[in-house]
C-alpha cells in the first residue's frame, strides 16, 4: 500500500524524494499455499507499541511486538515523523493496523489463521539500521508458523 509523490504537497514530496532507497538485483517471489491456508502476520511501520514499551527514537530500526490479543486502547504511536495524518489512527486503529479486519477474514475462512504476534517498526529509519532486526524477525515469524506477512507502511 503506497502513495505517489505527485499527489502530495510539494514541500512533503521534496523531502521524500531525497530519501535513499536500497536497490536489489532481483525480487524474491515464491508461489505458496492458497490464502485460505496461510497464517498471516501484520507488520506495520507506523511506530506503534504498547503504552509503556520503549518509544521509537530517530534512526531506530528495531521493532516492537504486538500480541494478537492486544486491545486498541493499549496502543500508542511514537513515529518520529510529523508529516502524516494521525487523526485516522486516533479515531480507529484499523486504519493503520488492520487487526480486526484480519480477524474477520480468518472468521470468514478467507485467510487460514492469524499470527499470535504482530510487529511494528517506525518507518523513518535508514534501511541498514533495520536489517539485523528484520533478519531476526523472520526467524520469529517462522517459529510462529507464519507464511504470509501483510506489510502496512505509514
Amino acid at each position, binding site marked *: *500500500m*503506497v502513495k505517489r509523490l505527485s499527489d502530495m504537497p510539494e514541500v*512533503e514530496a521534496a523531502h521524500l524524494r531525497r530519501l535513499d532507497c536500497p536497490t536489489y538485483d532481483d525480487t524474491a517471489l515464491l508461489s505458496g499455499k492458497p490464502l485460505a491456508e496461510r497464517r498471516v502476520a501484520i507488520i506495520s511501520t507506523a511506530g506503534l507499541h504498547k503504552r509503556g514499551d520503549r518509544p521509537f527514537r530517530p534512526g531506530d530500526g528495531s521493532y516492537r511486538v504486538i500480541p494478537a490479543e492486544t486491545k486498541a486502547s493499549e496502543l500508542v*504511536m511514537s513515529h518520529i515523523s510529523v508529516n502524516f495524518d494521525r487523526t485516522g489512527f486516533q479515531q480507529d486503529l484499523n*486504519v493503520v493496523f488492520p487487526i480486526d479486519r484480519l480477524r474477520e477474514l480468518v472468521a470468514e475462512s478467507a485467510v487460514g489463521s492469524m499470527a499470535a504476534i504482530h510487529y511494528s517498526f517506525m518507518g523513518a529509519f535508514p534501511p541498514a539500521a533495520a536489517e539485523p532486526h528484520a533478519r531476526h524477525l523472520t526467524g520469529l515469524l517462522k517459529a510462529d508458523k507464519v507464511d504470509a506477512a*501483510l506489510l502496512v507502511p505509514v
Partner: protein
Amino acid sequence: MREHTEIVRPPRALWVTFELGRPLGIPDDPPFQRRVAKAALDLLARTDGPVLADYPEDVPEVTDFSGWACPISLAPSEVDSLAAEIDRLGTWYDQSMAKQGRTTVGVSGLDIPAAGALVSRALNNDLPEAQALKEAIDDLRAYYLEAASAFPDPGTATTRKKWFWDETQLAKALLALQPRLAASSDPQHKILGNLTLIPATERHRLRQ
C-alpha cells in the same frame, strides 16, 4: 510512495491513493478496510512479480465546513497561558475518551499538565532532553486533536488540524521553539527542530 516502491521492487505491492497515515483508507469503515486488506492479500497468488497493483477505489474528499469556526473559544490572548489552554481542553478530552473508549495519549509516561510544563520549561530557555520533549509534544498533540474531535461541531480532521496550527497556544509554542532547537549545539535538538517538530506543510508559518 509509488516512486520508492518502483525502485525497491518488493515482490508484491498494492498502490493506494489515500492520505499518508491512512493506508487502509477510511477510519471506522470496516467494509472499505476489508476490501483494501483483501486486495493486498490476494496479491499473494501472483507469481509474475514484482507486482505493483493499482487499488481501484479512492477515498472521497470530505467536504470542509466553509468558514468553520472552533465552537470553543481557544484563541490565544495576552493573558492566556499554555497551562490554562491545556486545562480548558480537559473536559473535551474526557468526552473523546468516553466516546472512543480509548486514547492514543501515553507515549511519554507524563500526565498532560506535566507534558505542558516540559514545553513551558523549554520556552524558558531550559531545553529538556530532545527525546523527552518530543514524546511530551506527541502526547500533547494527540490530546488536543482528540479533545477537538469531541467539540459540539467537530468539523473535519482537516479543519481541526488547521485549528490547532491557527489558534492554539501549543502551536505557537512549537513555532517559537523551532529556531531555539535548531540552533542548539545538541544534535538531537537539531533533529527535533529541523525535522520532527513542525510538519512540512506548516513550516511556512516559521517565516511569518
